[in-house]
């Protein structure tokens, strides 16, 4: 039981953290509330399913291909539908909702509402302090932590990462320093979608796929981003684990827990906001006029 809670909490937390970091990134850089973010995560999972089940690709080939494809798709969508209406915040919001609906419906038409699955990459299980943990779960955890570390390295140690962070901090000044703001926004869209796609690739062998699987992570991701403070990587990271453990604890310990898991996690978020309106690690932005 306790081991179950820990392993599930860690995996869910890592996936939420990956999603939340991508979302935070695109919000910070381009001020876009991208509702379609988890739709990209779902899309990656389906791409892998197609590559694995229909095209017979090895999963080690299918997964990177899917991640790249989703990144490209996100950039194309951004150029076509979001970039032309960037100044109109409400319109951008609806455009991303509509985009998510398009993806969901396209998958529904293509695959039907059935639950689909991909077999685990490696079979077998390890015994850790007397509990069976499948290798697949351990692999997922390792990949998720690696991906988190990778995104941290990219943002903190590379030049494009620096450009990204500076644009997030102050768009106008970044522009004055010779950073092409439009191109950075496009790049960010692609990168954030790719991070979401990595999360999708991680969950493929663990979860079942259906065209509505983007809804729950979306809500949790939004809650995490608010809890941790918009635009704060550290906040997203800590918030993700708080929310994931809250969810898992409720499911395992409370009767009727699976109904209440969302409620409890979201109530925690609201409680935190009552005490700290800018989130755990958020910076209270000066009012933008």
């Amino acid at each position, binding site marked *: 039981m306790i081991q179950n809670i820990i392993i599930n909490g860690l995996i869910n937390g890592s996936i939420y953290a990956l999603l939340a970091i991508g979302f935070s990134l695109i*919000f910070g850089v381009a001020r876009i*509330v991208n*509702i379609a973010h988890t739709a990209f995560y779902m899309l990656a999972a389906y791409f892998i399913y197609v590559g694995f089940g229909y095209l017979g690709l090895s999963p080690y080939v299918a997964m990177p291909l899917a991640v790249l494809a989703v990144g490209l798709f996100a950039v194309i969508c951004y150029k076509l*539908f979001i970039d*032309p*209406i960037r*100044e*109109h915040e*409400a*319109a951008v*919001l*609806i*455009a991303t*909702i*509509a*985009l998510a*609906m*398009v993806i*969901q*419906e*396209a998958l*529904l*038409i293509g695959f039907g509402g059935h639950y689909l699955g991909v077999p685990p990459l490696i079979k077998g299980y390890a015994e850790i302090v007397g509990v069976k943990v499948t290798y697949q779960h351990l692999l997922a955890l390792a990949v998720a932590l690696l991906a988190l570390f990778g995104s941290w390295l990219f943002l903190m140690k590379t030049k494009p990462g620096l450009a990204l962070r500076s644009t997030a901090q102050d768009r106008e000044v970044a522009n004055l320093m010779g950073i092409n703001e439009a191109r950075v926004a496009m790049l960010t869209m692609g990168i954030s979608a790719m991070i979401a796609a990595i999360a999708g690739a991680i969950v493929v062998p663990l979860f079942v796929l259906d065209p509505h699987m983007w*809804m729950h992570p979306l*809500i949790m991701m*939004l*809650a995490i*981003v*608010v809890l941790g403070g*918009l635009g704060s990587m550290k906040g997203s990271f800590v918030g993700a684990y708080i929310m994931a453990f809250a969810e898992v604890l409720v499911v395992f310990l409370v009767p*009727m827990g699976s*109904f*209440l*898991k*969302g*409620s*409890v996690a*979201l*109530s925690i*978020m*609201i409680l935190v*906001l*009552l005490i700290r*309106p*800018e*989130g755990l690690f958020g910076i209270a932005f000066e*009012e933008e*006029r």
Partner: protein
Amino acid sequence: MGLLGFYLRKAYTLFKNQILVLPSRTAVLLFALALVCLPLFTRDPYLLRILIFTAIFAILAASWDLLSGFTGQMNFGHALFFGVGAYCTALLNLRLDFPPWISIPIGALGAVLTGLIVGIPCLRLRGTYLALTTLAFPIILMGVVFAIPDITGGELGISGIQRLSHSRVTDYYITTGLLLILGFVMWKITDSKTGILFHAIREDEVAVRASGINTTRYKLYAFCLSGFFAGIAGGLYAHIMRTAGPSTLEVALSFQIVIWAVFGGIVSIYGPVAGVFILYPLLEFLRILPKVRMLVFAFIVLLTLLYMPEGLIPWIRDHIEKECPRCKIRNVAFRKECRVCTARLD
């Protein structure tokens, strides 16, 4: 007799000089007349049913506009008010045998109360934080609804509620009548002193506070007003459907409201109403393509926004009317000079 004649003449002058001079106002008048006269020509139950739901959702979308469009308090969980209104009305009707004309207003008061409860923590947040936090409330309530099936009926919801009236035509007149009345009331609110304060809070809250106005109270006021109108829509929905289920609290409904309102054009009240009257029947009409229905719908919304990012109705309005540069009064597009101050229009 002379007095009556005077009032009649005055009414005619007002009608001519206030309504007929502007194509948008004429369009609203024609729209209201068309709604009222429709059952004289057709009593097709399917058509009436669609229009009943359209009217209910139009009230809902307009109430969203009052809170999010005018006051700028982006609410992503507007389904909360709708759901609370529906559940309260259903429980009052079923458990206490209240007739619809009592249960709906009291149900709406329940929604006002939630508006207060939700508004108080949300007052400290703004912008995207607020939008994402409000999204959480209906989901929290939905979890509670599932967890206490004895009271709320769990997944199936509460069924067996009394019908709104005995015939569909009466239902139609009640809902569309309420839409016209409440729509007018909301439009008047946005035009009043309070409405101007709502505008000001959206534009610059700090400046409003600096002018000695208690913005907190006005924001809370906006939450309650919006909750009231949305609660009425929820109560009507419960009595028409004769069930109140968890679908009234869904995230999809909250998103749908935002889509309707932004598509029609926010900060106008009539924009969201028009948005619902275009999009809801469109979605029903698309049933001829059952498989790709939602896909086509989403594409229509996407493409419309690409060309009219301000929304459909403001786009049309700006093409048939222009604003006088001097006195800011609207004129028909083909006029050469302003109808009030005779300044040249370009």
